[in-house]
């Protein structure tokens, strides 16, 4: 902490969507922990990760929601989309069906989410392609394993779709870390200042006035000995 006036800090709910095994959780783990796990098990328990993104004029605190597998049988709850200000729609650029699924999720977001939501389309697993950029993060490692180019979806195809729909577009490698931070920084920059609410708890009162005050924090400390000392 410094004595300087702190930059305004805002919480942003970001939801993850995409076909199974495209690397949704790996991208987030790379972003949050700068870590990658080979052959990661399907997600159980990656409930709620947070990571700060420092911009020149403000700090964005991403609250990252995983689907927790509820999308598998089309059973995501409306709660998942509720108030999401950003979405990461991920496909695997070595797997054509995953882009079809990604388009389905974009349509679903446009139908269910708040109108101003920032959506980033992300083609993951760039390390499995012959692109220099993809293996650039860690040339020794990537070079040894990737003898060929497994890319099945061209950059142009996905990019032109993203432009049509007004999405941010990136190709990434969660494995090498290539472009991962850039995705989140771009999302943070794209979120309109007007839609940012101040972080819960930190001077939130001025934003929405009276109504904000009545919001209650159930996790806050209970009144001292609430059980014993009745208000009566």
């Amino acid at each position, binding site marked *: 902490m410094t004595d300087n006036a702190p930059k305004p800090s805002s919480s942003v709910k970001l939801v993850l969507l995409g076909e199974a095994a495209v690397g949704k*959780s790996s991208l987030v*783990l790379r972003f949050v922990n700068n870590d990658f796990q080979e052959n990661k*098990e399907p*997600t*159980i*328990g*990656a*409930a*709620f*990760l947070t990571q700060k993104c420092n911009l020149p004029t403000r700090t964005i605190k991403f609250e990252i929601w*995983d689907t*927790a*597998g*509820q999308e*598998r*049988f*089309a*059973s995501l*709850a*409306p*709660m*998942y989309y*509720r108030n999401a200000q950003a979405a990461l729609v991920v496909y695997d650029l070595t797997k054509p069906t995953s882009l079809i699924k990604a388009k389905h999720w974009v349509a679903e977001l446009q139908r269910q989410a708040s109108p101003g939501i920032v959506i980033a389309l992300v083609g993951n697993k760039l390390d499995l392609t012959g692109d220099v950029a993809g293996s650039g993060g860690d040339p020794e490692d990537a070079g040894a394993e990737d003898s060929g180019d497994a890319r099945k979806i061209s950059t142009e195809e996905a990019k032109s779709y993203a432009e049509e729909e007004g999405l941010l577009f990136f190709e990434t490698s969660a494995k090498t870390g290539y472009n991962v931070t850039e995705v989140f920084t771009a999302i943070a920059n794209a979120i309109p200042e007007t839609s940012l609410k101040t972080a819960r708890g930190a001077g939130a009162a001025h934003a929405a006035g009276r*109504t904000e005050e*009545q*919001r*209650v924090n*159930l*996790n806050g400390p*209970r*009144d001292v000995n*609430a*059980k014993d*000392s*009745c*208000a*009566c």
Partner: protein
Amino acid sequence: MADEIAPEYDVIVLGTGLTECILSGVLSVKGKKVLHIDRNDHYGGEAASVNLETLFKKYGNFASGTEPWKQYGRLNDWNIDLVPKFLMSSGELTNILVSTDVTRYLEFKQVAGSYVQQGAGSKATVAKVPSDAAEALRSPLMGIFEKRRMKSFIEWVGQFDAKDPATHKGLDMATCTMQEVYDKFGLEPGTKDFAGHAMALYQTDTYLAIKGGAPEAIERLRLYGNSVARYGKSPYIYPLYGLGELPQGFARLSAIYGGTYMLNTSVEEVVYGGDKAVGIKATMRGIEPEMKFETRAKLILGDPSYFSSKVRIVGHVLRAICILKHPLASTNDSDSCQIIIPQSQVGRKNDIYIACVSSAHNVCPKGYWIAIVSTIAETSANHHLELAPGIERLGRIEEQFMGPPIPLYEPLEDGTKDQIFISKSYDATSHFETTTDDVRDIYRRLAGEELVVEGLREGIQVAAE
């Protein structure tokens, strides 16, 4: 897709009402493999929150070819509860929400006020329920001498300790009735009415005469007082976007710990092995082609609608959902409130409840209020007359939705014989205390131990948390 359904689960849960979702979440956290199914395409079952179009279509009260919901703003702004309830802020559901961290997915606001009616018809007055001794002294509900008696009663309730006879005022708590406690303080009938009905939240007067029933009544009064003390305005809190968020939050908890969710899935058959249920045959709809599957489970739990031959009707609730363009009269223009009309004030056996919420809780567009009037049916016809004293309090009503009496179900058996554990319907009480009682009861029946939610998630390895 069908190959993603396991051949066997520990538990199959049918219905995504709050009771089922809490149990599903708790069981998943405890490491059970759960398959959770609902025949509807949305979460919440009987206790869902719906938009105005869905509500009109459910009640069918519009001319065909018209779309009356279109005059009420954006459809997505409406989240109308089918079952009206509030959370007691120091109640058991709050405790479960905090212990399971489901609070992360939800935001709550206080309900602005808790009110009670005295008298009936044109002479009726509505006043805030006094929550502490100071409010009792200011309350218009009592005369000057009665206020002092009430003050000393409230102070005594605050100090009461069931285990310490010195706090019992010479009464034998093992045998004494609440009537005797009130008499000890010389409270008048009107005061007993609002203490018993608007604070202890009894729906009838039967509690007065139960021998040894005083400690429970006093405990309920303390819960009310502690709940008010927690945030200040009323004992109640309410989730933004409606009560339907609660089952969704617990469903997410269950999914995070590995629970599998399938909406839009109807159960054709419960498969038995001897006396015990051992699995289900079901079909997931809404996809092409439909997906038929069969899977096994050690036990099945669900809401009464999935087991019509294994439940009985124990009563009927009457309910009218009303859309207003103004706050309720005499509630200080509250954005939300509860009004209780104690039965004796309007010549009934059961209380009438009014629950009111508004855009402050993101359940409707700005400028609207949703008021739900409910009571237990006492007659077999003209049910609108039973609700009339409550409807009268609402003033001008834009839209009113009232269907036939809603049956309340209870399981015939406790489930230990056939391994089918059935929840109770959501009753007419204004809070979730009976729902969490049912959750605990079902858990005890199926697990053979008490449910302890405190520290439930501690020490459990969760990937990437």
